[in-house]
């Protein structure tokens, strides 16, 4: 029986179609999470599934549409309705596997920013084997100021502690060198502010190579750099995985070695698979919004819903607000500190 939080799921946008999305909903519901799915009833075929309610919705926002105008104009689109469901208290969190831009816009306008947060940031848990590394921003803000990066650090630290269970997470600032003066003006400015900040364990600058190495528990950067770095890591991992598979099939001896390694590599493969992390989360809002991986399978959809439900259960929003306040990292506090 469903007794967990209620999650609003955007029924459109899954690249693999309604069947895969519906199967993901069934898997999550079996965990006890209640779902309100905004999409076409007949295509979803979720009638009678315990814990799942389909809210008939015919309109959606596609990847090709300009997100902000589309969200403002299409009040009945599935992702907009899912966000409204959270703001009206019907659901406790939202998940969309559709357009990332539309999800960010719908969530930002629908759920609204946490008091004192200037820019929400998109965060992902990097699939680093055995050690969660939270990386943000991976696409919400192409241009940032030093104060934005400082807020990202607090948003990431709060999420890492509350949701990923990392005690006293160390936060690094992505730059081109470990020395404090390295990097663009906003990066060196953020370094100076974070060095003085209370309530956060600042680990200083980290370089690109340190990201998958786990030099810090949380790594902060702007959305442009973060998105490029994330895609680079995903592409590299895919290429290397393919090369290992080809090498393992190159001759009988290698094939035998590959077979012996298969059980161990299977677990690693699952850990590295994008479906495992459940997608990205938009931090800094007054509610929970998870952006599912566009190509997610049923397990990926289910994990995105599980991630949203877990955020609700551990009060990720409340703990984030408290850390921002405690660390003097709200917009007003930082403006007063800088004398503005």
């Amino acid at each position, binding site marked *: 029986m469903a007794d967990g939080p209620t999650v609003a799921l955007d029924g459109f946008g899954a690249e693999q179609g309604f069947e895969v999305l519906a199967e993901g909903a069934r898997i999550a519901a079996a965990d006890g999470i209640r779902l309100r799915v905004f999409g076409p009833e007949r295509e979803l075929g979720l009638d009678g599934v315990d814990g799942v309610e389909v809210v008939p919705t015919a309109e959606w926002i596609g990847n090709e549409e300009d997100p*902000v*105008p589309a969200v*403002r104009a299409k009040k009945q689109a599935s992702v907009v309705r899912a966000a409204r469901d959270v703001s009206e208290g019907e659901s406790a969190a939202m998940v969309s596997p559709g357009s990332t831009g539309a999800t960010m816009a719908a969530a*930002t*306008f629908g759920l*609204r*920013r946490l*008091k*004192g947060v*200037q*820019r929400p940031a998109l965060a992902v848990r990097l699939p680093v084997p055995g050690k969660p590394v939270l990386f943000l921003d991976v696409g919400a803000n192409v241009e940032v100021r030093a104060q934005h990066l400082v807020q990202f650090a607090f948003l990431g630290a709060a999420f890492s502690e509350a949701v990923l269970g990392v005690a006293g997470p160390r936060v690094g600032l992505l730059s081109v060198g470990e020395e404090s003066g390295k990097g663009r003006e906003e990066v060196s400015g953020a370094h100076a502010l974070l060095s003085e900040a209370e309530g956060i364990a600042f680990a200083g600058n980290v370089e690109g190579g340190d990201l998958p190495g786990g030099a810090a528990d949380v790594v902060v950067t702007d959305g442009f750099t973060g998105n490029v770095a994330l895609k680079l890591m995903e592409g590299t991992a895919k290429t290397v995985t393919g090369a290992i598979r080809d090498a393992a099939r190159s001759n009988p001896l290698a094939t035998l070695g590959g077979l012996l390694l298969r059980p161990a590599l299977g677990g690693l493969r699952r850990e590295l698979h994008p479906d495992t992390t459940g997608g990205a989360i938009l931090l800094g809002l007054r509610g929970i919004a998870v952006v599912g991986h566009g190509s997610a399978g049923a397990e990926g959809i289910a994990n995105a819903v599980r991630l949203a439900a877990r955020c609700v259960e551990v009060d990720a929003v409340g703990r984030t607000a408290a850390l921002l306040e405690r660390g003097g990292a*709200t*917009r*007003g*506090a930082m*403006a007063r500190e800088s004398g*503005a």
Partner: protein
Amino acid sequence: MNKDEVFDLVRGHLAEELEVDPGKIGEGTRFKQDLDADSLDLYELVMELEDNYGISVSEQQAARIETVGDAVAFVLEHSPA
């Protein structure tokens, strides 16, 4: 609805969201230069006005709203009530 009511709503929204002293917000206050508001802040204000007053603000119209007084005047001119 009169001018003062709309002004109070705009000022209250900005003071709350931007964490600034409401006493520092007047009709001539410029969003970007005086309040350090960015495009996201302005979109949120526009949506708040749309929700409260039943108006519709296009992208082009929103781009021309630069001061608190501009926002108040726009609402008074376009509100159906």
